[in-house]
Every structure is written in structure tokens, then in C-alpha cells.
């Protein structure tokens, strides 16, 4: 491929050579892209919760509420990050079957997956998952319900802040609501390849 490399770079150089000057790189203020609702002194959790509801996500502040939601949906078999499970287990009745290893040979057995979020963005209702903080990419994606457990201190206000805070992790994913499509006649359907129900559980 080194020949293709040279071909491309020499074409680029000869295409740009005749330009009398190159366009300069403008600088810009982060303020420009912050939405109106996220300006000024912002209480991050209420804004995050409101924006998450706006994209059909579910913000929760108590483990008991999570148990109620799962029971109501009939989702009793799931996965939980082994680090989180000791904290959550006391609230789960014995009718639940929760595993702490996600077996990819039977992804459809897991109706919910509980993993940690390493951050969140208030103005967009976005959860931030990383390779370092998420116990399994599949466990956070394949089950119908994904529950991301979040600390208040990890919520940032806006997108520019979140970009500046991108960790040195090979994979960071921002999740904004349940998986969705409007490919068929523009009709919104949730739960395409990823979760149909996206929960953020605040746990301080």
C-alpha cells in the first residue's frame, strides 16, 4: 500500500500547489454551541433528567423504582456488573435472576443489563460509557433494557465540556436514549439493534 500512499499524497500536494494561500483555521468559542437551556448556572441532574425524558429515556433516582419498572415490564432475568451488584442486590426480590457474567452464546436470555456510566451530558440527556468503566459492551447493548448507573459528580453540562473531558480510552460511546430508526416510512420505532428501554439510575 505504500505506493498508494505516495500516489495520494503527491496528488494532494500537486492539487494544492497552485493555491496562492491556504484557508486559515478559525478559532471558536464553546459558548456558541451550548443550547439556550444549558446556559448560566445549571443544576445538572434535573436538566439531564428532563432532556433524557425528551428522547424517551427513563431517569430514576432509587433502586426500588428500578425494581418496579423491571417488574412491570416482566423483565426478571438480566445481567449486572459484578462491581455494582452487591450494592443493588438487597433491593431485588428473589423472583429475579441476575447473572454477573454475560454469556454471548445466549444474548437473548438477558432481558436487562446493568452497567456503569462514567459520565453524562445534561443538555442532551446523554450517558457516557467507556471501555474502562463498562463491564461489557454487549451487556450494555444487546438486552432490551439497559440501565446505566451514574454518579451526580460525573454529569457535565454541555457537549463542548464532554468533548474536553474525553478520557484516554480506546472506546467512548455517548448514548442518547433508546436505539431507534425511522427508516420505514419515517415512523419512529425504538429498540432496533440496541435497547428499546434506556434507563439512567442516579446512585450517589
Amino acid at each position, binding site marked *: 500500500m505504500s505506493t498508494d500512499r505516495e500516489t495520494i499524497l503527491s496528488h494532494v500536494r500537486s492539487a494544492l500547489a497552485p493555491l496562492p494561500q491556504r484557508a486559515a483555521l478559525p478559532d471558536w468559542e464553546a459558548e456558541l454551541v451550548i443550547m439556550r437551556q444549558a446556559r448560566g448556572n445549571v443544576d445538572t441532574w434535573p436538566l439531564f433528567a428532563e432532556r433524557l425524558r425528551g428522547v424517551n429515556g427513563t431517569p430514576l433516582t432509587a433502586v426500588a423504582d428500578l425494581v418496579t419498572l423491571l417488574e412491570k415490564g416482566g423483565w426478571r432475568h438480566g445481567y449486572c456488573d459484578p462491581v455494582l451488584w452487591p450494592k443493588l442486590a438487597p433491593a431485588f426480590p428473589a423472583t429475579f435472576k441476575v447473572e454477573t457474567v454475560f454469556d*454471548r452464546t445466549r444474548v437473548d436470555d438477558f432481558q436487562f443489563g446493568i452497567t456503569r456510566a462514567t459520565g453524562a451530558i445534561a443538555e442532551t440527556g446523554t450517558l457516557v460509557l467507556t471501555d474502562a468503566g*463498562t463491564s461489557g459492551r454487549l451487556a450494555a447493548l444487546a438486552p432490551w433494557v439497559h440501565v446505566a448507573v451514574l454518579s451526580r459528580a460525573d454529569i457535565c453540562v454541555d457537549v463542548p465540556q464532554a468533548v474536553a473531558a474525553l478520557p484516554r480510552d480506546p472506546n467512548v460511546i455517548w448514548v442518547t436514549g433508546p436505539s431507534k*430508526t425511522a427508516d420505514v416510512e419515517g415512523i419512529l420505532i425504538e429498540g432496533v439493534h440496541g435497547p428499546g428501554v434506556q434507563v439512567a439510575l442516579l446512585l450517589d
Partner: protein
Amino acid sequence: MATQRIDQFAKDLRADTKAAVYDGSKKGHEKRTSVLFDHLPDANRLRVLAGEIKQHVVENLDTYLPQVEAALQANGVKVHWAATAEAANEAVLSIMRARGATKIVKAKTMVSEETELAHFLEKNGVECLETDLGEFIVQIAHDHPSHIVKPIIHKNRREIATLFEQNGLGAYNDDPETITRRARQHLRGKYLAADVGLTGANFVSAESGRLVIVTNEGNSRFCLAATKCHIAMVGIEKLLPRDRDLGLFLNLLARSATAQQLTVYTEFVSGPKAAAQPDGPEEMHVILVDNGRTTVLESDCREILRCIRCGACLNVCPVYRQASGHAYRSVYPGPVGAVLSPLLAGERFPELADLPKASSLCGACNEVCPVNIPIPDLLLRLRAKGKREKAPLAAVGSPPMGAWALLASQPTAWKAALFGGKLMNYLPTKLLPIPALRAWEAKRTLPAWRGGEFRAWLKNRPKK
């Protein structure tokens, strides 16, 4: 006068398809406008800024390409370069062969549409499956996408239900939710069985080598959660100078494409998975693809390389809304396609030389463009190119202007014609041989011809 091809497409389009395309694109446009301006105090400033940043990248690719290569390699990514579509496809195949892999799952990438990757891999014995719902439907229908963001905007649910039935995906059911669930079930087995996941990239930061991949369905995330090897095919113009510029571009992309603040999944990938992470690729490749882009860079239309493939110009375009995407006979439809497709075609420019003419130059595409591409100007430059190169398709539908051009380019003949026009004042209009003209004239009085008077005034006016 001969009909332009795009007009013929519009005429032949089924009424329900036309209605679907029209409604879909109109809704997309209206939603975009409200989201952009409700959320952001100075949305217009943002797109001008984004345009300046992308123009800077395009004009400094000689710096940024080696920079991004080094950044990617430092992240543990293998970098490949592909000057042509064939080279890009071959690169994918040789990575697959080196791994002994026979199955690949693929997220939506426009550059792989350009290279017809899926078709190439199938021919070479590789099972290649599209995973975006729309692209999957296009694949099983042996069709082509007709919109950059909404590939099956031209299909209705009944056609899709029939396709699913024919492909063993359950009995006929045209409920969109059922269709989606069936695709979910079918495709997750495929992800888990595949060895390689292929994606594009919406942006690549030259500073850190981070690839940004956005989807709503979560299909590219599934590719990167289930497979062991990640290949990203990236056009060489996809670079951004700094990570912080992502804050600006992510804010513009989703709003322009689907009127969302952010797409559901925005993934930042800078290398193979972390050691402690159980899922995801252990090996990552990036193929930097030219496939005609350096020719565009050389042309006087290089601004089109700013494009971030949001599809906003399609949604707003009165011609696209009537003709649909297939009328553009190329990977990129709509106003962006009318500029980009003939340029990327290279030596086959004459085959698409009519596309730059498929526009009333109303300018709506420029107004909505999140990177402020002056599309109408570029269309005019391409019309001139078509004329210069005497491409027959560039002349279809043009009124015959030969006699006019002859007259207008020779001052003596022009002056004589202006003076000669005075004779018209003495025409016996009541005796006009054409009945329609005679009827028109009977009710109206033609103003007197005053050709040449302005010139006489100009010549004799008192000079200071």
C-alpha cells in the same frame, strides 16, 4: 426540445413513491429548522464557522493526512491507503484473508457504496451483510439507496413486508414495528457469528486519531461489540484539525441530518479494545480512501469536499423532492450529488454532465448546508465545464442559442440588428400568419421598438 434525464425520471416516478419522497424530505427539512433555531442562539454563525474549518482542512490535507496517520499508528491502528475503489476493496479482502475470515457485518458507510464493497466481497466468497435497517432492506431488494441518510425513503411498508416474506423473515406483516423486530432478531445472530465489523467514520480528529461514528439504530456499536476485528473505510476529506472541533460538528451533524441534538449513539474509537474489556475488536484497521477526491481537490469545486453527508440539501431541494434519489444515477443524490457525482466520476464526467443542470439555482441547498458549501456556484462552474468539454448531456434541454451568440459576440452585427429591429414598428401585425399571435395582438399594443437609443445617449451624453 429534448427532455433532460432527470425530468424523465420525475415523470416516470410512481405517484406513491413521489409522495413518500416529497413528504419525507419536507418533514425532515421543517424539523431541522425548528431544532436548530430553537436550541441555538446563532445557528447561522455555526455553519459558516464549520465551513471555514472544513475548508481549512481541505486546503491543508498535505499536512493533516500524515498527521492523522501518525496519530492512528500511535493508537495501535494499522493504516492502509487506497487510491482507487478497487484498491480499497482489495485492502478489505486481504485483511479478511489474512485472518481466515469469511463473514463481515457492515454499518452504513457512503464510501463503501462508492466502491461497491458488498458486491465485491460477495463475488469473492465473503458473506457481507448490511446491518443498518434501511441498507439491509436495500441489500435484500437488490436495490440502491435513494437518500444519504434515509436510504429507503422511496419504499413503502407493503413493499418491505413482501421482501421480508420472500427472504424467509416471517409471514407478510407490514407493521413497521414487526418489521423492525424481525430485522433485530435476524441481524443479532449475524453480528455474533461475524469475525469482522466494517464501518465508516463521520469525523476523524487529526490531533488524536479518534474516529467518530454516529448511528441511531446501534448497528455500528453492535459490529464493534460482537466482532474481533474492526475495519474503517474513511474518505481522505473526513478529517478535523482538533478534538474540540468535534463539539461544533456533532452539534451540527445530527440536527442537520435528522433534527436530533445528538444521534442516539456517538462512538469515539481510537484503537483496539482495552485489555480488560471482554467485548470488541482486538485488531483495528483504517483504510484512507481517495477514489477521485484528489481530482476534486484539484478542480475549482474543492469546496464540495467540506460535505459531512447530512442530507439536508436533499430534503430542501425542489428537484430532489420531485425526482427522488435514483434520478441522479450515482451514489450521491440531490444537490450535493449534482456536484460531487460528476466530479468523482473522473473520466466518466460526460455521463453525468446533465446533473449540474438539474437545478433552478434557487440557493436553498446553500442556505441549509451545515458547512456552508456554495452549491449553486459550484453547479455553475460544472455547467461551464460541461460546455467547455462539449459533453452532449450538458447541452440537453438548452434552448438553441447559436444565432443569438453569433449576434451578441459581433459588435457590428449587434448594432445592425438593433437598428434593424426598428422595422418591426412598421410590421402589419393584423396580417400576422399565426392565428394565436394575431389574437394576442388584437387585444394589446406592442410597445414601440427603441433599439439603439441607449447607445446613442451613452455616446452623446455630456462628459464631465
